[in-house]
Every structure is written in structure tokens, then in C-alpha cells.
């Protein structure tokens, strides 16, 4: 788990180095190709259950796939965004997908892709977008590839929500080695509950509440999980404020 996340972060950092910029969600998209061994990948950002707008594509075919879904109004990204579940379509030529996306499946096959895997970028009710990948040969992802794809998607979600690998930009300060965001899954629940509580305390949306929670921890150099626990235990309340930095109270 830790080694997998470290390896994937390494691939993403390689992409940022190649590009010569700070680590961003674009690099996660590019790293997906090597990490998951797919032909191409694309990344769309969206705050609700739609396909969203394309922010990265590793090649023309990936871009074409994203565009097709927008044009046709059907396809795996839309399904992944709506259901909040990954779509693992290992063979677009199978009857199942002909039924599911009558126009998209045909058009995608004509463009080259045969297998498409799309991962919703979500943290519960917080929606960031989708990460899509394709191959020109049919077949499921192996268990290892699926694990890597989920890891890339998890990191892409954090990057899209404004947490970068360098710890900048309102990053979570409960970081692991090398400034990496922590494995959120391990202490998920308190962070999720605190985020929900903040929607009420700050009268704001769930995605903004998450941003504010992280900003509070970052600006005070506290661990995200500690701040979350204090909020859940009602030792800490945050109040809406006109400007930043946020003011909290104990």
C-alpha cells in the first residue's frame, strides 16, 4: 500500500520533471499510461454528475474519446460520474456495451480503443472529475494494474482539489515522507465527519468545507487528522470569516 503509493507518486513526479513544473493533476493523467500500462489517458474536471471539461489528454485518441462523450451524451465517463463507480469496460465489442452505449461504443471502436476504464474522482459527496484510460486490445486490468489505477485516481483527486505533492497550496500538513499527502483511507471517517460538520458551521458546500478544513490545518501546521478529531469531539469550531486566514476557536 505505502510502497504502491510511493511508486505511483514517483511516476507522477517524473512527469512533472519532464514538463518542468510543479506537480499537478495533469501529471497524474500522464503517469497513468506507464503505471497502468494503457495506451492513453484523459482527465476531466467536474463538480457535479457530468462528464466535465477536459483538462488533460495524453494523445489525440484520448481527447477524441472525451469529446465523443460530450457530443453523444453517453459513455463510460458519464456513467462513472453519475454512479460514482468505476466503469471497467474490458471489451467494447461485447454486446453488453453495444446495449449500454449504442452510439459511443461504435464510435470509440472506430477510433481505435477496445477497452476503456474510467474512474470517478470522488471523496464521498465531493466530486472532482473522472480519470479515463483506454487500450487497443480487449481484456481486464490485472489486480495490480487495477490497484495502481485506483491509486493514480486517488492522487489525481487530491491534486484536482488543490493538494499538490509539494505540500503547497493549502496542502494537508499531516503529510507522509517526502511531503506526500497521507494515506487518507486509514483515518478516513473523522475527516469525513468533520468535513460534513463544517458544511453547517461555515454554511458552505461539501467541497469548500474540505478545502477550509485543510486550509485551517495547513495554516497552523497541524495534522489534518488532529484538526478533524477536535472538530468531531466538538473541542474546535470554525467560523465563517470574510477573509483568510480562517479564525478558529477552541
Amino acid at each position, binding site marked *: *500500500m505505502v510502497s*504502491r503509493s510511493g511508486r505511483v507518486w514517483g511516476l507522477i513526479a517524473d512527469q512533472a520533471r519532464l514538463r518542468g513544473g510543479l506537480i499537478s493533476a495533469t501529471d497524474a493523467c500522464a503517469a497513468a499510461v506507464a503505471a497502468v500500462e494503457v495506451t492513453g489517458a484523459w482527465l476531466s474536471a467536474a463538480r457535479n454528475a457530468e462528464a466535465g471539461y477536459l483538462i488533460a489528454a495524453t494523445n489525440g485518441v484520448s481527447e477524441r474519446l472525451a469529446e465523443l462523450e460530450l457530443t453523444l451524451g453517453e459513455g463510460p465517463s458519464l456513467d462513472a460520474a453519475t*454512479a*460514482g*463507480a*468505476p*466503469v*471497467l469496460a*474490458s471489451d467494447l465489442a461485447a454486446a453488453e456495451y453495444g446495449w449500454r452505449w449504442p452510439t459511443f461504443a461504435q464510435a470509440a471502436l472506430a477510433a481505435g480503443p477496445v477497452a476503456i476504464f474510467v474512474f*470517478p474522482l*470522488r*471523496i*464521498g*459527496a*465531493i466530486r472532482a472529475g473522472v480519470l479515463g484510460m483506454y487500450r487497443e486490445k480487449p481484456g*481486464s486490468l490485472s*489486480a495490480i494494474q*487495477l*490497484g495502481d489505477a*485506483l*491509486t493514480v485516481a486517488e492522487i489525481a483527486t487530491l491534486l484536482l482539489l488543490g493538494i499538490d505533492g509539494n505540500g503547497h497550496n493549502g496542502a494537508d500538513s499531516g503529510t507522509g515522507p517526502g511531503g506526500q499527502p497521507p494515506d487518507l*483511507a*486509514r*483515518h*478516513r*471517517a473523522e475527516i*469525513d*465527519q*468533520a*468535513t*460534513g*460538520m*463544517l*458544511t*453547517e*458551521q461555515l454554511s458552505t458546500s*461539501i467541497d469548500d468545507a474540505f478545502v477550509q478544513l485543510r486550509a485551517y490545518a495547513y495554516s497552523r501546521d497541524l495534522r489534518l487528522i488532529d484538526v478533524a478529531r477536535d472538530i*468531531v469531539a466538538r473541542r474546535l469550531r470554525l467560523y465563517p470569516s470574510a477573509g483568510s486566514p480562517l479564525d478558529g476557536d477552541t
Partner: protein
Amino acid sequence: MDGQLLSETFVELTDTMVADFDVIDFLHVLTDRSVQLLDVSAAGLLLADPRGELRVVAASSEAARLLELFQLQNDEGPCLDCFRSGQAVSATDLSTEAERWPRFAEAAQETGFAAVQALPMRLRDQVIGALNLFRATPGPLDPVGMRVGQAMADVATISLLQERNMRHTDALNEQLQTALNSRVTIEQAKGKLAERLGLDMDQAFNLLRDNARSRNLRLSDLAQAFIDGSEPLIGTASAGGQQTFGGSRAPVRPRRRPRPGPPKPGP
């Protein structure tokens, strides 16, 4: 053991073929019925995600949920041993288990639990998770109860793996990821509701679930709609079903058929 409730429970645990099956709700039925039927104080359930990483997906109480999380965070405890070995793991007196699980044994006793049993969720070679049963008093767990508990875990596992044409692992993986994300949404909704009404997390969860059940909605859909603001849940504080619901659009679709509510005393 309540025979009537037991047979109803087994029926519930095979009832996964409905169009709007909700994994989280289903697994909560398993933990709740474990407490009602097996003479245990609390139950928690861990499932492995597609990466083999265990996640807490259901618990009969916040205390049990936190204790499951504690095991994951500290990488030690009966649920992990059970998942890794695929065998039931039991500790009849946690005060003597400081060597086996130094941190877990202490945390469990602080929470008020004295004995624990972990049962594997397995089908043939595949172990998908583990069910943890906690008791407040030390002593051996009732062997009949444990057999029933394992039978419930087995039936639930089979039902989960066969849910909705689980033809291949792709479908199972899609399903698991959805369930894990629903779990996150439900925690967010619990936080929002707890803050709004001044409740603790257990109360918030029960309120959400009772509301979903009484209105025949999927728990995860209701949680999502509540966070989005399309489902205000006004009046959820008042008892007796005096609920009013605003919102101009129908935020969540009704379930096709009702799941049995909390058990009622027999005639």
C-alpha cells in the same frame, strides 16, 4: 435466540437481487442482526478494497466502528489476523491478550469490551473481509451463537459475491469501490446532520438510516442528497414521523421494494 428474527435475517441476507441494492445498508443489517441475535454488545465489519486494503464498511455502533479503525491504523487486532489467515480468531478475555495485540487489547478494554471474536467473510479461497463481534463481559462466546454468526457471514458473503450478475471480478470491483465511496458519503452526511441537530454520530447515523427506511430510499442516495442540499431532512429531530420535506425536485428515487425495518416483537 429469537428463531423468527433469525429466519428473517437469513432472508434479508440473501435479498441482494433488488435493482437498487445498497451494499452499505446490507452490511449494516449484518452487524445489527449480529448484535440482536448473538448475545454480543457490538459488531464491526471490514472489507478489502480491490487493492487488498481493509476498510471499515459497517458497524453496529460508533464505538465498534472506531475500534475497527483503530485496528487498521495500528495494523494489529483480531479482525486483521482473521482476514489474513481466513480463520476465525477468538479472545475470551482481552485483559490477558496484551502480548498478542498490545495496543488493540488496551483500546478495546478502554472502550468497554472484554472479549472478541472475528469471523472470516470467505467463499472458498477468497477472503473478502471479516466480521468482528465484541462483548462487554469476558468468557467464552456461546458456540451455537458463533456457528450462527459464521453462517450469517457466509450467507452475506455469497450474496455479495453473486450480487447482480457478478460474472467477473470487474463487476465486483466496481461494486466494492461504489460501496467504499458510499461509506465516505455517509460519514460526511452524519457529520452534517450531527452538527445541524446537535447529535452524536451514532444518533445521526440512526436518524439517517431510519429516515431512509421509513421513506423507502437508499441510504447512500439519501446521504448524497442531504449533502447536496436537495434533501433538507427538515423535521428529522422530531420523533413520531412528523417529518416535512422541502425541496422542489424529487432528490432520490424510491426503492423498488421495502427492506424489513427494525425487528418488531413477535405477537
